């Protein structure tokens, strides 16, 4: 597999996903349509890290617009026969080549990659980290997050990058946020969602069970609960995500930058041929699905309904978090993904995203650690990190 799109420093300690802009460096979001695109500015999170003395190692390969499982369908990927699927940034963190990496959590690919590689990834509360300089797809739920080897390293990087940015209208007002890993977890209550647990394979189930055991050993109460809306919440997010992605990638039309087809006689052919050549099958499926749910005759039944479901799920999650500190779930159904045909990707990603969709839908934080996922209430990142740390410590 290909790890770096571009590597520009051997001394660098932070890798940056190719969906995040670094001034003057290739930024293609894994897509042929953005061939050769070099931005005029860096993402706010990148600027903040550089200002604090962190050096950027390079741009890591991602799947086209991060729409796939873990990065397998990057236009620039080089997979060998029989190689299992991994995320580039997560693997670089695992190998210790970089201390941390920035990734954009949009439809679960970052959290799945972290789970497969056994590293940590935090998708923070929506609005805490600036999205300025993120190649945006699903603006209402995507959030820039951090891969690192453990909770402490996640907290360190998050403290640098989070905080209000006037260049992002969705950025929350707090000038800064601090993250720690030493909240007392004794007496915390964690629930396991039966519906999500049941969707995982035996290895993942065993991981969840053993994680729950470790928590109990630290004095955390663990209960199983039922959430009957996980599938509908996922469908709602897929509708919103596809619609917003369809809209955001409309600007890649071959007119201004990136790939332009050599084969056109008029503006319509320029659009159609550039986009046909520039997007992969999965992105095209997302564009068609997104375009459909926004069309006049489907809007009320699909898009608008998804917005209403978003509000209801938000209410139900709020109620849930009034009883539990965190929700323990798988981040994906397996511990290993084999290569597969891109024609199956839309359905496969849809199915796998049931584990990751709720935090994207309602803007809450989620932390992947030791192969499992902890979801928390808005701004409860430190609680999640502290819970994860107690289990990390036990593993040492």
């Amino acid at each position, binding site marked *: 597999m290909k790890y770096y799109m571009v590597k520009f420093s051997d001394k660098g300690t932070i890798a940056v996903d190719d969906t995040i802009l670094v001034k003057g460096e290739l930024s293609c979001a894994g897509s042929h349509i953005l061939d050769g695109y070099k931005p005029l500015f860096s993402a706010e999170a990148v600027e903040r890290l550089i200002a604090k003395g962190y050096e950027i190692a390079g741009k890591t390969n991602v799947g086209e617009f991060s729409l796939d499982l873990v990065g397998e369908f990057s236009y620039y990927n080089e997979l060998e026969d029989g190689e299992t699927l991994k995320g580039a940034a997560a693997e670089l963190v695992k190998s210790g080549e970089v201390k941390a990496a920035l990734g954009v959590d949009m439809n679960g690919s970052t959290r799945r990659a972290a789970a497969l590689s056994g590293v940590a990834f935090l998708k923070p509360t929506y609005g805490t980290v600036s999205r300025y300089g993120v190649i945006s797809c699903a603006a209402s739920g995507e959030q820039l997050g951090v891969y690192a080897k453990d909770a402490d390293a996640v907290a360190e990087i998050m403290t640098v990058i989070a905080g209000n940015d006037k260049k992002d209208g969705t950025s929350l007002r707090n000038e800064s946020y601090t993250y720690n890993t030493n909240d007392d977890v004794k007496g915390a209550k964690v629930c396991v969602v039966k519906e999500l647990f049941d969707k995982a394979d035996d290895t993942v189930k065993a991981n969840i069970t053993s994680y729950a055991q470790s928590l109990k050993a630290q004095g955390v109460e663990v209960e199983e609960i039922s959430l009957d809306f996980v599938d509908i919440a996922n469908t709602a997010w897929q509708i919103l995500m596809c619609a917003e992605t369809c809209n955001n990638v409309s*600007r890649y039309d071959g007119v201004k930058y990136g790939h332009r087809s050599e084969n056109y006689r008029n503006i319509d052919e320029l659009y159609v041929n550039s986009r046909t050549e520039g997007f992969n099958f999965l992105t095209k499926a997302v564009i068609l699905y997104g375009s459909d749910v*926004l069309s006049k005759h489907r*809007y009320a039944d699909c898009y608008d309904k998804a917005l209403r479901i978003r509000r209801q799920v938000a209410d139900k999650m709020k109620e849930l978090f009034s009883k539990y500190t965190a929700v323990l779930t798988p981040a994906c159904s397996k511990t290993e993904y084999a290569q597969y045909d891109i024609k199956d990707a839309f359905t496969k990603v849809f199915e796998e995203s049931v584990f990751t969709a709720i935090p994207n839908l309602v803007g809450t934080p989620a932390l992947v650690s030791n192969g499992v996922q902890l979801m928390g209430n808005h701004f409860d990142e430190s609680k999640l990190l502290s819970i994860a740390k107690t289990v990390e410590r036990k593993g040492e």
Partner: protein
Amino acid sequence: MAYELVIGLETHVELNTESKIFCSCGGHSSPIEPNDCVCPACAGMPGMLPVMNKRVVELAATAGLMLNCEINRYTTFDKKNYYYPDLPCAYQITQLNHPICVNGLVKVKTAAGERDIRIKQIHMEEDAGKLVHGGNSSYVDFNRTSVPLIEIVTQPDFRSPEEVVTYLGKLKSMFKSTGISECEEGAMRCDVNISVREEGTEEFGVRTEIKNMASFEAIDRAIRYEAQRHMDALEFGTEELVQETRRFDDVTGKTSAMRNKETEADYRYFPDPNLMPIVIDDEWLEQIKANKPVALDEKAEAYSEMGISDKEIAMLMSEHTVAKLLDDVIALGCNGKDAAAWILTDCAGILRKAGLKLKDLAITADGLSFLIKKVEEGKLNRGAAKKTLIAVIEQGADPVAYCDEQGFLVEVDSSMIESVIDKAIESNPQAVADYKSGKEKALMAIFGACMKELKGSGDPGQIRTMLIEKLKN
């Protein structure tokens, strides 16, 4: 059969702001090279996010208040999707579900009487760029992308082209005189919805829409042509009317149907997740109301009461910066009629000689009121004041400093005036004798001698009174 014309208008007006609606690009209203006024945001580059320009909200709400609208306290933006090379993101940010202003009313007076035109809504949106065609290629110019616009949508309340043109003229002078829009060529564009029905019936006829017209004259002609076409179809069955979008050809004077492709698009509107809903709270609304410039009619009336002539009022109405200068000078305690004369006669004359326009007048209200007051107080003679104005207009001099440097300001005290008067009486015995014998005109000779001696300083009225007083003895 008698027919009635039913017309509704959608009018786009460019707002006069320093920067674009969602980025800080400025200077879009001045003529510049293509793509000079473009940043990654308004060029639709990935990674950039729209950030709301607060001034746009304030100007849109102000326009709404002038058209007697309700201001929606909760207003949101939507994305409208379509592909065109002059639209860099392939979507336009506009307002569909929660426009900033609703339910307004404008009175339109024509020879046929006065009619109430209801305003359905006013919404904010961004403009698109433009295409430039040359040789075998087309080029895009993004200078205009994201320039702030408001779209004013009326109910189908117009009944004649005269009413439409009067309404548009009213909007234009209202927005121009208050600085909401420069209303320059092309900054006001109209879509006209038109149908014809039998007089006395309630039901609307088949509606056609004529898109994107910029000149009042073309709008007037287009409406007349389209109305006749509808009436011919109804009366003589010349053709079957269909609901469609048409364009007006300025040369032939006819309208023709646009291709279906351009009109039957599904724009797939949805709420823009990058722009949080805008909440206009009481405090902000009060502030907007307090800063609302006085509307044209009220303002013209107030000027008229000050004794400013109709011609001068017309000049003030066409240049809002000049009107603002006058208002500020009046607020600093100067007489309105005099101040208007200073601006529209003295300053205008100097500007004309320098090849400049009235709108180029660059003098502060403080500076101008200083000059006016010093002249009134007799501490500066009019000629010197005019020289100062020339220096201000032609060289950008500071009025206070300039008068000081040139020694124009004269401190006059009454004992000095008294001695000048005494001297004048002494050296003009014949005039004094004539005056005393009843020839009032003779006073002018003595008065003139005083003024000559004082070199124009001193308050003429006061000097005259003192002189008459002395001559009584």
